């Protein structure tokens, strides 16, 4: 009898011929999540099994599994032989000592000499004998003891399902570039896309010397936190200080942020194309700030051809904060920092910038040269090695 963790996956079962591909990526992601912890990962039909681990670290393993996208649910249980004695012992071990219960058997091994109904009755009877405080209720039991009779002469016995994080295995839905600022929203946006299986590359704009290295360190910390889910912690930074200076010097003050965001989108697109990225991801939420009105978004969107995914567009700030707390980035996000957008912040930013006016003002700038300069400031940090 050995302690095991049974992992069931979400949505992958909906896949047809490319199911094998999804399963392979999923198992690579599970291995990454469990890196550094002694274990063996086995693929069974429709599920995975973690075995040979240090039982004193079961909670830590479960916590890591609970963060892997694609996990529908998992159970800590026992792997044992299929003799009645072994099934009895395992069932007794996992079954609570009191309350109502039932036994639910699933036989993958159809040659097993007893039917599911017979096993339910015999194991249930044994448990009743052993624990007088138990009572059978087959309709609405407080506890269910599951017996899973496998084809290889083993059985999995467990009594509880823990919910996984759901979603699709990261890496099965292409690659996107997340514009990460250091605030609350963008890490949540990255989480949402990683949840749908997207590999997320992080791009941060800073404005040295107007912003400090503390802001960059904070984004690195957010990248590490996000990597707990996305398994990728590569952060690229670009300096937009000179772009801001030029905008400030030559263009209408109320368009400072609008024009800067157009540069950010352009730079993000160029960066995305250089690394095989297929879309941009932003934490924009409609109407949250002046640059996130539909006019502001239109103005930024006009300069790129890659799709821009905005998973938070319909979310209220409260909802975003709740998610941020859930994924664990909130505490870092709310640390004070300097956002490069605030450096030359006009008193009254344009809330509904007209595209024609924006383009006219931008015409005063040497966009190509400024882009080249900013791209040349590129720095890359691989935070997974930390």
């Amino acid at each position, binding site marked *: 009898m050995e302690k095991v963790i049974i992992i069931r996956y979400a949505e992958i079962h909906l896949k047809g011929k490319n199911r094998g591909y999804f399963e392979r990526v999923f198992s690579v992601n599970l291995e990454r999540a469990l890196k550094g912890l002694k274990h063996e990962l086995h693929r069974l039909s429709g599920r995975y099994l973690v075995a040979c681990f240090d039982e004193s670290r079961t909670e830590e393993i479960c916590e890591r599994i609970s963060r892997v996208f694609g996990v529908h649910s998992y159970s800590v249980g026992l792997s044992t032989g299929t003799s009645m004695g072994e099934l009895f012992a395992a069932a007794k071990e996992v079954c609570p000592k009191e309350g109502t219960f039932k036994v639910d058997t699933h036989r993958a091994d159809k040659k097993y000499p007893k039917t599911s109904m017979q096993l339910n009755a015999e194991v249930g009877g044994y448990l009743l004998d052993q624990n007088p405080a138990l009572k059978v209720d087959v309709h609405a039991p407080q506890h269910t003891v599951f017996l899973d009779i496998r084809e290889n002469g083993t059985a999995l016995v467990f009594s509880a399902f823990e919910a996984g994080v759901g979603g699709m295995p990261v890496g099965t839905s292409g690659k996107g570039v997340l514009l990460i600022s250091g605030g609350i929203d963008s890490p949540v946006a990255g989480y949402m896309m990683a949840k749908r299986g997207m590999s997320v590359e992080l791009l941060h704009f800073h404005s*040295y*010397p*107007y912003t*400090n290295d*503390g802001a960059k360190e904070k984004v690195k910390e957010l990248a590490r936190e996000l990597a707990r889910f996305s398994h990728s912690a590569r952060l690229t930074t670009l300096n937009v200080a000179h772009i801001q*200076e030029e905008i*400030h*010097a*030559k263009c209408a003050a109320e368009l400072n942020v609008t024009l800067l965001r157009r540069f950010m989108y352009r730079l993000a697109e160029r960066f995305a194309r250089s690394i095989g990225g297929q879309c941009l991801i932003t934490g924009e939420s409609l109407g949250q700030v002046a640059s996130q009105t539909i006019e502001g978004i239109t103005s930024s969107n006009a300069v790129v051809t890659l799709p821009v995914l905005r998973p938070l567009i319909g979310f209220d700030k409260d909802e975003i904060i709740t998610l941020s707390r859930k994924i664990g980035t909130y505490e870092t996000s709310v640390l*004070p*920092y*300097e*956002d490069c957008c*605030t450096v*030359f912040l006009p008193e009254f930013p344009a809330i509904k910038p007209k595209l024609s006016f924006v383009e006219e003002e931008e015409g005063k700038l040497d966009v190509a040269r400024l882009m080249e300069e900013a791209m040349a400031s590129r720095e890359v940090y691989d935070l997974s090695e930390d």
Partner: protein
Amino acid sequence: MIYLDNAATTRPDEGAVEAALPYLHEKFFNPSALYGGGVLVHEEVRRAREFLLSCIADKARYELIFTSCGSEADNTAIFSAARRGNAVTSAGEHAAVYQSFTELKNCGVEPRFAPLKGDGSVDGEALLSLVDEKTTLVSLVHVNNETGAVNDIASIAKAVKSKNPRCLFMSDGVQAFGKLLFRLTPEIDLYAISAHKIGGLKGTGALLKRKGVSLSPLIFGGGQEGGFRSGTENVFGILAFAAAAKKKFMTLESEFSRLKTYREQLSSALDKGIFTRISPKDGTPYILTVAAKNLRGEILQRLIEERGVIVGTGSACSSKHPTSRVITACGVTKEYLQGVLRFSFSPATTEEEVIAAAEAANSAARELIARTARS
């Protein structure tokens, strides 16, 4: 690299590091232990304590309690002394005192803050007017860490005691110890100091306490430091503290006049069209604080660092708090409020360095003005 942020911390003195090393190697013993090594170390800690005490106080009247830092010394004093009624301090205190006073509200004690003059020293009359028969503690920083202004704590303590003899008077002396010629007068009950500001190591501070003043400890345990501060003594830090202080007090007067000359040289070399001086002429010679008009200190600091000079700013590194509480309390006008720079010196500071620092500051400020101009 020229380092002029010595008020934040200063490079440990070589002699102090040397003095610490034996206690990290062969003399590693616990000073509370009863065998030979322990007794020996205990005796050396006792000597260091006596020496540090003798630097500024009468050994017959005061005792010294080692702590982990100046902030712990401040906290121990404040939360012991302010138990009821009200407690008076200034708006120019270090955060260790200011935040503790703010916390006193939750302990049922009314905190009162006296206003500052333009140079960062307290308005003494205003402070006295806040003291009444219900005042249990008055705390006043000796040297303002942001502007370098010196408060005449001896006179103010005397005036406070003549108004309310029962209240306790404490002072945060972290920027004064080893840098000002000064001895504790009988009206000063408690005085906090720190090692790493004078060439000692981080992790060591002390609270000087007039004998007879009763303190309640923040940390309970084995009863070290006369029961006022439990926890095994930081022996190497304490011995390094004593060694650093020894050197500092030997050269105190010569350093005072040397650095005063440098401070004035630096001050006059700064571009008057950009910088205005906040530090007073009669302040500590170790600090020169200035403010640049319509520029941000943090950005200037980075541009100055690019030129090979490290200086401090007067503000917290946060866009949410771009201005300093203390500098604001000095009444500095809006256009200068965000542009604070603090140059602070050490025995290692040279004349060439202060001149280079002034040039770096001028050139950085000019660059920033050019880069942020609107055409």
